[in-house]
């Protein structure tokens, strides 16, 4: 089923590794192998762009999921989108989004839109709880 990474998950610290690890726990290692984790740790802006360029070239991924719209991973991914027309960049990645992406069968042009929708709908207040000041 798996044919290598279809997307890069780029995030601060160890978040990308953690997200991909969680995908493996829920959907299995083969599904998680469609995602390549990528961290911005210890990388400046130019070095981060270079590292992402290499990751895209080695994986053939055409999608980059990032954590923070304002973050350095997103800046680097948008630079890559300028170099690689057709590269998709999605900010605010979460587990429901990544699960929908890797489990979509077949993978088609609507897969990314579906994943984004699952990511959005996965954010809910399950219990309102007490007010926190």
């Amino acid at each position, binding site marked *: 089923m798996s044919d290598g990474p279809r997307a890069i998950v780029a995030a601060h610290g160890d978040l990308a590794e953690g997200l991909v690890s969680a995908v493996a726990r829920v959907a299995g290692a083969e599904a998680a192998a469609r995602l390549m984790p990528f961290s911005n740790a210890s990388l*400046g802006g130019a070095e981060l762009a270079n590292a992402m360029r290499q990751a895209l070239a080695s994986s053939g991924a055409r999608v980059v999921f990032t954590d923070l*719209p304002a973050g350095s991973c997103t800046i680097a991914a948008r630079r890559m989108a300028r170099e690689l027309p057709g590269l998709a960049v999605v900010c605010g990645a979460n587990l429901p989004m990544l699960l929908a992406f890797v489990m979509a069968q077949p993978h088609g042009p609507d897969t990314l839109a579906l994943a984004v929708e699952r990511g959005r709908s996965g954010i809910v207040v399950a219990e309102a709880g007490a007010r926190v000041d």
Partner: protein
Amino acid sequence: MSIEVFRIDDRLVHGQVVVGWGQPLALGFVVLVDNLVAESDWEQDLYRMGVPPEMSVHFESVDGALAHLAEYEGRPEHGLLLTGDIATMRALVERGAAIRHVNVGGLHHRAGRSPRLRYVFLDPAEEADLRAIADRGVAVDAQDVPAAHPVPLAELLAATGG
């Protein structure tokens, strides 16, 4: 109000700036001083996208920053001035910008640089630039986020850990 932080950070506008400093200081604006970014609409769009709607980003060359610094200092909101390298901050200081404190926020691994802190790597020329800034009476320390302990320049230059 005034520019609260003069920061050197090779990632320029990113999470630590917008969220890490932006929220506790209630930053209303960021001044990004970079000669290349100041000439590129596309680069400016890239960085503008990253800030929340309540925060504005202004792009200046070194010359532009020196010309407009007093206006920025007079704005009613809190601000942060950002350069991507030490040489640009040194140019601002040596050309007369009224800067009393410089924050080294992030200079990451690159060939020729040695590790000083987890988020600060320096080459000899950059160390000389920092000393030159300090020689002008400017306090220099390293601090990636407000909750971290500021590391004074002497301690930073003596550190050997990455």
